[in-house]
């Protein structure tokens, strides 16, 4: 194992790792930057806000999901529809204006 690994370059190893991580997954980290651990705290904060929205809009509620699949309420369709609309417009704007990350990296999409 060690001998095999040393015969290929580190870039090949990185590519192989990204390939492996992307396998059958649509959610991968495209950043190649190395950061101190505390840079990750921002994801905890985004997650926290996201979690509050999920609870407060009752999106995770068993009752709301039953209503949705029985077409008895517009709530969930409104949430999903407006979320996709805002997400799609954001992605289109990022592509069109080539918006960079806060670290100046080009934002990657794999489609």
């Amino acid at each position, binding site marked *: 194992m060690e001998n095999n690994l040393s015969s290929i370059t580190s870039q090949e190893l990185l590519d192989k790792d990204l390939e*492996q*991580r992307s*396998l*059958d*997954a*649509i*959610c991968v*980290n*495209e*950043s190649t*930057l190395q950061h101190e651990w505390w840079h990750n*705290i*921002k*994801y*905890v*904060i*985004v*997650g*926290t*806000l*996201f*979690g*509050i*929205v*999920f*609870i*407060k*809009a009752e999106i995770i*509620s*068993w*009752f*709301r*999901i*039953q*209503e*949705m*699949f*029985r077409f008895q309420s*517009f*709530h969930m369709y*409104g*949430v999903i529809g*407006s*979320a*996709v*609309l*805002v*997400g*799609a417009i*954001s*992605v289109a*704007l*990022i592509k069109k204006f080539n918006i960079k*990350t*806060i670290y100046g*990296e080009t*934002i*990657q*999409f794999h*489609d």
Partner: protein
Amino acid sequence: MIELLSKPWPWYVAGPLIGLTVPTLLILGNKTFGISSSFRHICASCAPAGIPFFQYDWKKEVWNLLFVLGIFIGGIIAGNLFLNPEPMVINENLKQELAAYGITNYSSLVPVDLFNWDNLLTIKGFILMVVVGFLVGFGTRYAGGCTSGHVIMGLSNLQWPSLVATISLMVGGFIMANFILPFILKI
């Protein structure tokens, strides 16, 4: 302020906020929004078991685990600090139908009449909690993403596979809620 936060938020507030998560994660660090991948990273970090699918540098995806940790923290905050003291308001027809299955408690986001420790060892409870939990995990892995990854991120990026996943999800949910769940609830 707390009173406003405690009320259930309408769709036109929650939907755009969820949509904004997509560009936020992209701009903060080139991260594509998703939740279920965290299960894979946990497997890769705890028990790769020699399976190639789990052999990658999971530390690069540690952001995803922290994002999910944040969702958990957000749940605790919203469920305690901004807790809605009123019972959930749902469609009257659904309420009557559920009452026929003995579901009358609306104090929680999930029906405590169904999901409780005593029910876990009954056939109905076991199907609803363990079997269905397995199906959720299996389907998510088989599709390569869950609702958040495919519907929110995938559709935002106009990806065909995500549209297929979204349609399948809706069809599956429709069949389950209308034709299969009534039989399970009658057990």
